[in-house]
Protein backbone atom coordinates (compact mmCIF):
# COMPACT_ATOMS: atom_id res chain seq x y z
CA UNK A 1 0.00 0.00 0.00
CA UNK A 2 2.81 2.34 0.89
CA UNK A 3 4.58 1.47 -2.34
CA UNK A 4 1.49 2.35 -4.37
CA UNK A 5 1.39 5.77 -2.80
CA UNK A 6 5.04 6.26 -3.56
CA UNK A 7 4.48 5.40 -7.22
CA UNK A 8 1.55 7.79 -7.43
CA UNK A 9 3.54 10.50 -5.72
CA UNK A 10 6.36 10.01 -8.17
CA UNK A 11 4.00 10.17 -11.16
CA UNK A 12 2.28 13.28 -9.83
CA UNK A 13 5.62 14.90 -9.20
CA UNK A 14 6.84 14.12 -12.73
CA UNK A 15 3.62 15.34 -14.21
CA UNK A 16 3.97 18.75 -12.59
CA UNK A 17 7.61 18.88 -13.61
CA UNK A 18 6.82 18.03 -17.22
CA UNK A 19 4.27 20.72 -17.90
CA UNK A 20 7.04 23.30 -17.94
CA UNK A 21 9.72 21.37 -19.84
CA UNK A 22 8.26 18.82 -22.26
CA UNK A 23 4.85 17.87 -20.89
CA UNK A 24 3.57 14.91 -22.93
CA UNK A 25 0.17 15.06 -21.22
CA UNK A 26 -0.18 18.79 -21.76
CA UNK A 27 -3.89 19.37 -22.36
CA UNK A 28 -4.34 21.95 -25.10
CA UNK A 29 -7.24 24.38 -24.50
CA UNK A 30 -10.16 24.07 -26.95
CA UNK A 31 -9.72 27.73 -27.91
CA UNK A 32 -6.35 26.86 -29.46
CA UNK A 33 -7.98 24.18 -31.66
CA UNK A 34 -10.66 26.64 -32.78
CA UNK A 35 -8.07 29.30 -33.65
CA UNK A 36 -6.04 26.75 -35.63
CA UNK A 37 -9.17 25.67 -37.51
CA UNK A 38 -10.03 29.29 -38.30
CA UNK A 39 -6.51 29.81 -39.65
CA UNK A 40 -6.85 26.65 -41.77
CA UNK A 41 -10.10 28.02 -43.26
CA UNK A 42 -8.46 31.37 -44.09
CA UNK A 43 -5.57 29.54 -45.78
CA UNK A 44 -8.02 27.34 -47.73
CA UNK A 45 -9.78 30.46 -49.08
CA UNK A 46 -6.40 32.08 -49.88
CA UNK A 47 -5.15 29.08 -51.87
CA UNK A 48 -8.44 28.95 -53.78
CA UNK A 49 -8.37 32.67 -54.65
CA UNK A 50 -4.69 32.58 -55.60
CA UNK A 51 -5.34 29.73 -58.05
CA UNK A 52 -7.63 31.97 -60.14
CA UNK A 53 -4.88 34.53 -60.85
CA UNK A 54 -2.34 33.76 -63.53
CA UNK A 55 0.93 34.41 -61.74
CA UNK A 56 3.09 32.14 -63.86
CA UNK A 57 5.40 29.92 -61.88
CA UNK A 58 4.43 31.82 -58.71
CA UNK A 59 1.12 29.95 -58.63
CA UNK A 60 2.72 26.66 -57.59
CA UNK A 61 5.04 28.46 -55.15
CA UNK A 62 2.10 30.17 -53.43
CA UNK A 63 -0.02 26.99 -53.42
CA UNK A 64 2.82 24.96 -51.86
CA UNK A 65 3.70 27.66 -49.33
CA UNK A 66 0.08 27.72 -48.15
CA UNK A 67 -0.05 23.90 -48.07
CA UNK A 68 3.13 23.80 -45.95
CA UNK A 69 1.64 26.39 -43.55
CA UNK A 70 -1.58 24.35 -43.24
CA UNK A 71 0.36 21.12 -42.68
CA UNK A 72 2.55 22.92 -40.13
CA UNK A 73 -0.49 24.07 -38.15
CA UNK A 74 -1.91 20.52 -38.13
CA UNK A 75 1.43 18.98 -37.08
CA UNK A 76 2.20 21.53 -34.36
CA UNK A 77 -1.24 21.85 -32.76
CA UNK A 78 -3.60 19.01 -33.78
CA UNK A 79 -0.75 16.47 -33.60
CA UNK A 80 0.63 18.10 -30.44
CA UNK A 81 4.23 18.25 -31.70
CA UNK A 82 4.61 21.72 -30.22
CA UNK A 83 3.90 20.26 -26.79
CA UNK A 84 5.90 17.04 -27.30
CA UNK A 85 9.40 16.03 -26.25
CA UNK A 86 12.50 16.90 -28.23
CA UNK A 87 12.73 13.31 -29.42
CA UNK A 88 9.22 13.38 -30.94
CA UNK A 89 10.05 16.74 -32.55
CA UNK A 90 13.21 15.19 -33.96
CA UNK A 91 11.28 12.22 -35.43
CA UNK A 92 8.71 14.54 -37.02
CA UNK A 93 11.46 16.73 -38.46
CA UNK A 94 13.46 13.74 -39.71
CA UNK A 95 10.40 12.56 -41.66
CA UNK A 96 10.36 15.69 -43.77
CA UNK A 97 14.15 15.79 -43.99
CA UNK A 98 14.08 12.31 -45.57
CA UNK A 99 11.40 13.46 -47.99
CA UNK A 100 13.69 16.32 -49.08
CA UNK A 101 16.49 13.80 -49.69
CA UNK A 102 14.11 11.68 -51.83
CA UNK A 103 13.14 14.69 -53.93
CA UNK A 104 16.45 16.52 -54.26
CA UNK A 105 18.68 13.56 -55.12
CA UNK A 106 16.24 11.92 -57.54
CA UNK A 107 15.28 15.16 -59.27
CA UNK A 108 18.96 16.10 -59.58
CA UNK A 109 19.41 12.82 -61.44
CA UNK A 110 16.52 13.45 -63.87
CA UNK A 111 17.43 17.09 -64.43
CA UNK A 112 21.01 16.25 -65.33
CA UNK A 113 20.26 13.55 -67.93
CA UNK A 114 18.32 12.99 -71.11
CA UNK A 115 14.69 11.98 -70.58
CA UNK A 116 14.85 8.15 -70.49
CA UNK A 117 13.53 6.51 -73.67
CA UNK A 118 11.76 3.85 -71.57
CA UNK A 119 9.47 6.43 -69.94
CA UNK A 120 6.34 7.95 -71.57
CA UNK A 121 7.34 10.66 -74.02
Amino acid at each position, binding site marked *: *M*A*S*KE*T*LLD*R*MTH*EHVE*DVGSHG*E*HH*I*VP*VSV*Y*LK*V*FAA*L*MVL*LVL*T*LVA*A*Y*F*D*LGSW*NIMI*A*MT*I*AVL*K*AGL*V*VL*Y*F*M*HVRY*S*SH*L*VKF*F*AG*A*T*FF*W*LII*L*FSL*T*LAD*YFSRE*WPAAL*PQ
Partner: protein
Amino acid sequence: VATETHPATAHAPAAHAAGHDEHSVLHHHFDDMEQQRECTSLGMWLFLATEVMMFGGLFFAYSLYRWRFLHAYHVGSQHLDITLGTINTFVLLFSSLTMAMAVHSASLSNRQKMVSWLGVTWVLGAAFIGIKAVEWTHDYHLGLVPALSWHYYNTHPIEHELLRAGIGPQQVMMYFVIYFSMTGLHAIHMIVGLLLVGYFMWLGQRGQFLKGNDQPVEILGLYWHLVDIIWIFLFPLLYLIAGFHPFAKGGH
Protein backbone atom coordinates in the same frame (compact mmCIF):
# COMPACT_ATOMS: atom_id res chain seq x y z
CA VAL B 1 14.29 9.50 -13.67
CA ALA B 2 15.55 6.21 -15.10
CA THR B 3 17.89 5.57 -12.17
CA GLU B 4 15.05 5.55 -9.64
CA THR B 5 14.15 2.06 -8.51
CA HIS B 6 10.61 0.93 -8.03
CA PRO B 7 10.17 0.76 -4.26
CA ALA B 8 7.88 -2.28 -4.54
CA THR B 9 10.32 -4.48 -6.46
CA ALA B 10 12.91 -4.42 -3.67
CA HIS B 11 10.97 -6.36 -1.06
CA ALA B 12 7.37 -7.04 -2.09
CA PRO B 13 6.77 -8.59 -5.54
CA ALA B 14 3.09 -9.15 -4.67
CA ALA B 15 2.59 -5.46 -3.95
CA HIS B 16 4.32 -4.70 -7.27
CA ALA B 17 1.85 -6.90 -9.16
CA ALA B 18 -1.06 -5.37 -7.28
CA GLY B 19 0.26 -1.93 -8.15
CA HIS B 20 0.22 -2.86 -11.83
CA ASP B 21 -3.35 -4.14 -11.56
CA GLU B 22 -4.24 -0.79 -10.15
CA HIS B 23 -2.57 0.95 -13.08
CA SER B 24 -3.15 -1.70 -15.74
CA VAL B 25 -2.61 0.85 -18.50
CA LEU B 26 1.11 0.80 -17.63
CA HIS B 27 2.68 -2.18 -19.39
CA HIS B 28 5.19 -4.15 -17.33
CA HIS B 29 8.18 -3.44 -19.57
CA PHE B 30 8.00 0.32 -18.97
CA ASP B 31 9.25 2.10 -15.85
CA ASP B 32 6.42 4.63 -15.76
CA MET B 33 3.66 6.25 -17.79
CA GLU B 34 5.94 9.00 -19.03
CA GLN B 35 8.31 6.47 -20.60
CA GLN B 36 5.42 4.46 -22.04
CA ARG B 37 3.81 7.53 -23.61
CA GLU B 38 7.09 8.68 -25.10
CA CYS B 39 7.83 5.24 -26.53
CA THR B 40 4.32 4.81 -27.99
CA SER B 41 4.43 8.28 -29.58
CA LEU B 42 7.83 7.58 -31.13
CA GLY B 43 6.61 4.26 -32.53
CA MET B 44 3.66 5.98 -34.20
CA TRP B 45 5.81 8.79 -35.56
CA LEU B 46 8.15 6.18 -37.05
CA PHE B 47 5.16 4.55 -38.76
CA LEU B 48 4.00 7.97 -40.00
CA ALA B 49 7.50 8.54 -41.40
CA THR B 50 7.15 5.35 -43.50
CA GLU B 51 3.72 6.58 -44.65
CA VAL B 52 5.23 9.91 -45.71
CA MET B 53 7.93 8.06 -47.65
CA MET B 54 5.33 5.86 -49.40
CA PHE B 55 3.24 8.87 -50.45
CA GLY B 56 6.53 10.69 -51.11
CA GLY B 57 7.24 8.31 -53.98
CA LEU B 58 3.90 9.23 -55.57
CA PHE B 59 4.45 12.95 -54.93
CA PHE B 60 7.81 12.53 -56.65
CA ALA B 61 6.21 10.86 -59.68
CA TYR B 62 3.69 13.72 -59.75
CA SER B 63 6.50 16.32 -59.70
CA LEU B 64 8.57 14.60 -62.35
CA TYR B 65 5.71 14.35 -64.85
CA ARG B 66 4.43 17.81 -64.02
CA TRP B 67 7.85 19.12 -64.97
CA ARG B 68 7.75 17.05 -68.17
CA PHE B 69 4.04 17.27 -69.15
CA LEU B 70 2.99 20.62 -67.65
CA HIS B 71 0.39 21.40 -70.34
CA ALA B 72 -1.10 17.91 -70.11
CA TYR B 73 -1.53 18.46 -66.37
CA HIS B 74 -3.45 21.66 -67.15
CA VAL B 75 -5.68 19.77 -69.59
CA GLY B 76 -6.22 16.85 -67.22
CA SER B 77 -7.00 18.89 -64.13
CA GLN B 78 -9.67 20.93 -65.96
CA HIS B 79 -11.81 17.77 -65.84
CA LEU B 80 -11.81 17.85 -62.03
CA ASP B 81 -14.59 19.62 -60.13
CA ILE B 82 -12.95 22.35 -58.03
CA THR B 83 -16.18 22.87 -56.05
CA LEU B 84 -16.33 19.23 -54.94
CA GLY B 85 -12.58 19.30 -54.21
CA THR B 86 -12.99 22.41 -52.05
CA ILE B 87 -15.94 20.90 -50.16
CA ASN B 88 -13.89 17.76 -49.52
CA THR B 89 -10.94 19.82 -48.28
CA PHE B 90 -13.26 21.64 -45.88
CA VAL B 91 -14.78 18.32 -44.74
CA LEU B 92 -11.36 16.80 -44.00
CA LEU B 93 -10.01 19.89 -42.22
CA PHE B 94 -13.18 19.99 -40.14
CA SER B 95 -12.81 16.28 -39.35
CA SER B 96 -9.29 17.00 -38.06
CA LEU B 97 -10.80 19.54 -35.67
CA THR B 98 -13.42 17.04 -34.45
CA MET B 99 -10.71 14.37 -34.08
CA ALA B 100 -8.65 16.82 -31.99
CA MET B 101 -11.78 17.36 -29.87
CA ALA B 102 -12.18 13.57 -29.44
CA VAL B 103 -8.56 13.31 -28.25
CA HIS B 104 -9.17 16.27 -25.96
CA SER B 105 -12.30 14.64 -24.48
CA ALA B 106 -10.41 11.37 -23.99
CA SER B 107 -7.64 13.15 -22.09
CA LEU B 108 -10.33 14.56 -19.78
CA SER B 109 -11.82 11.04 -19.38
CA ASN B 110 -15.13 12.28 -20.80
CA ARG B 111 -16.46 9.09 -22.40
CA GLN B 112 -19.68 10.45 -23.90
CA LYS B 113 -18.03 13.47 -25.52
CA MET B 114 -15.16 11.35 -26.82
CA VAL B 115 -17.52 8.86 -28.48
CA SER B 116 -19.66 11.70 -29.88
CA TRP B 117 -16.68 13.55 -31.39
CA LEU B 118 -15.40 10.28 -32.86
CA GLY B 119 -18.88 9.82 -34.33
CA VAL B 120 -18.81 13.27 -35.96
CA THR B 121 -15.33 12.51 -37.29
CA TRP B 122 -16.59 9.22 -38.75
CA VAL B 123 -19.53 10.92 -40.51
CA LEU B 124 -17.22 13.58 -41.99
CA GLY B 125 -14.77 10.91 -43.18
CA ALA B 126 -17.62 8.94 -44.76
CA ALA B 127 -18.85 12.14 -46.47
CA PHE B 128 -15.38 12.62 -47.94
CA ILE B 129 -15.38 9.09 -49.38
CA GLY B 130 -18.93 9.60 -50.68
CA ILE B 131 -17.99 12.80 -52.54
CA LYS B 132 -14.89 11.09 -53.93
CA ALA B 133 -17.07 8.20 -55.14
CA VAL B 134 -19.33 10.69 -56.97
CA GLU B 135 -16.29 12.26 -58.66
CA TRP B 136 -14.81 8.90 -59.67
CA THR B 137 -18.12 7.64 -61.05
CA HIS B 138 -18.36 10.82 -63.13
CA ASP B 139 -14.81 10.24 -64.46
CA TYR B 140 -15.70 6.63 -65.26
CA HIS B 141 -18.74 7.59 -67.32
CA LEU B 142 -16.81 10.34 -69.13
CA GLY B 143 -14.08 7.85 -70.01
CA LEU B 144 -11.23 9.38 -68.03
CA VAL B 145 -10.14 6.35 -66.01
CA PRO B 146 -6.97 4.82 -67.51
CA ALA B 147 -7.17 1.06 -68.15
CA LEU B 148 -10.81 0.78 -66.95
CA SER B 149 -12.65 3.38 -69.01
CA TRP B 150 -10.49 5.56 -71.24
CA HIS B 151 -12.43 6.82 -74.26
CA TYR B 152 -13.04 10.55 -73.66
CA TYR B 153 -10.38 11.62 -76.14
CA ASN B 154 -11.66 9.20 -78.80
CA THR B 155 -14.87 11.22 -79.05
CA HIS B 156 -13.46 14.63 -78.08
CA PRO B 157 -10.59 15.39 -80.46
CA ILE B 158 -8.08 17.55 -78.70
CA GLU B 159 -8.45 21.28 -79.27
CA HIS B 160 -6.00 22.85 -81.67
CA GLU B 161 -4.22 24.81 -78.91
CA LEU B 162 -3.23 21.53 -77.34
CA LEU B 163 -2.01 20.06 -80.59
CA ARG B 164 0.08 23.17 -81.06
CA ALA B 165 1.61 22.58 -77.64
CA GLY B 166 2.45 19.04 -78.73
CA ILE B 167 0.23 17.31 -76.23
CA GLY B 168 -1.08 13.86 -77.00
CA PRO B 169 -3.88 12.13 -75.08
CA GLN B 170 -1.34 9.71 -73.63
CA GLN B 171 0.23 12.61 -71.73
CA VAL B 172 -3.16 13.53 -70.28
CA MET B 173 -3.59 9.85 -69.42
CA MET B 174 -0.37 10.08 -67.36
CA TYR B 175 -1.97 12.87 -65.31
CA PHE B 176 -4.97 10.63 -64.63
CA VAL B 177 -2.79 7.62 -63.76
CA ILE B 178 -1.12 9.79 -61.13
CA TYR B 179 -4.44 11.34 -60.04
CA PHE B 180 -6.06 7.96 -59.43
CA SER B 181 -2.94 6.46 -57.80
CA MET B 182 -2.65 9.31 -55.32
CA THR B 183 -6.32 9.84 -54.51
CA GLY B 184 -6.84 6.05 -54.51
CA LEU B 185 -4.07 5.38 -51.98
CA HIS B 186 -5.38 8.31 -49.94
CA ALA B 187 -8.94 6.88 -50.05
CA ILE B 188 -7.65 3.47 -48.87
CA HIS B 189 -6.13 5.29 -45.90
CA MET B 190 -9.45 7.04 -45.28
CA ILE B 191 -11.30 3.71 -45.29
CA VAL B 192 -8.78 2.21 -42.84
CA GLY B 193 -9.25 5.35 -40.72
CA LEU B 194 -13.05 4.95 -40.80
CA LEU B 195 -12.75 1.29 -39.68
CA LEU B 196 -10.42 2.32 -36.84
CA VAL B 197 -12.60 5.25 -35.73
CA GLY B 198 -15.64 2.96 -35.73
CA TYR B 199 -13.75 0.35 -33.69
CA PHE B 200 -12.59 3.01 -31.22
CA MET B 201 -16.19 4.28 -30.85
CA TRP B 202 -17.25 0.72 -29.94
CA LEU B 203 -14.36 0.32 -27.48
CA GLY B 204 -14.96 3.81 -26.08
CA GLN B 205 -18.64 3.10 -25.52
CA ARG B 206 -17.59 0.01 -23.52
CA GLY B 207 -15.50 2.20 -21.20
CA GLN B 208 -12.02 1.97 -22.74
CA PHE B 209 -9.62 4.94 -22.91
CA LEU B 210 -10.64 6.38 -19.54
CA LYS B 211 -8.60 7.26 -16.46
CA GLY B 212 -5.15 7.66 -17.95
CA ASN B 213 -5.60 5.17 -20.82
CA ASP B 214 -6.36 7.88 -23.36
CA GLN B 215 -3.20 7.57 -25.44
CA PRO B 216 -4.61 5.08 -28.01
CA VAL B 217 -7.10 7.80 -29.03
CA GLU B 218 -4.24 10.27 -29.43
CA ILE B 219 -2.36 7.74 -31.60
CA LEU B 220 -5.48 7.24 -33.76
CA GLY B 221 -5.65 11.04 -34.04
CA LEU B 222 -2.05 11.16 -35.31
CA TYR B 223 -3.00 8.76 -38.13
CA TRP B 224 -6.14 10.74 -39.00
CA HIS B 225 -4.26 14.05 -39.08
CA LEU B 226 -1.54 12.63 -41.32
CA VAL B 227 -4.16 11.48 -43.84
CA ASP B 228 -5.59 15.02 -43.65
CA ILE B 229 -2.13 16.52 -44.29
CA ILE B 230 -1.68 14.37 -47.41
CA TRP B 231 -4.97 15.74 -48.75
CA ILE B 232 -3.85 19.30 -47.90
CA PHE B 233 -1.12 18.77 -50.52
CA LEU B 234 -3.18 16.73 -52.99
CA PHE B 235 -5.92 19.37 -53.29
CA PRO B 236 -3.87 22.25 -54.76
CA LEU B 237 -1.58 19.92 -56.72
CA LEU B 238 -4.39 18.01 -58.47
CA TYR B 239 -7.37 20.39 -58.56
CA LEU B 240 -6.00 23.93 -58.66
CA ILE B 241 -3.70 23.71 -61.68
CA ALA B 242 -6.14 24.85 -64.36
CA GLY B 243 -8.17 27.50 -62.55
CA PHE B 244 -6.57 30.40 -64.40
CA HIS B 245 -5.46 28.58 -67.51
CA PRO B 246 -6.80 29.55 -70.95
CA PHE B 247 -7.44 25.85 -71.73
CA ALA B 248 -9.73 25.69 -68.70
CA LYS B 249 -12.64 27.20 -70.65
CA GLY B 250 -15.28 24.64 -71.44
CA GLY B 251 -14.45 22.10 -68.77
CA HIS B 252 -16.06 18.76 -69.56
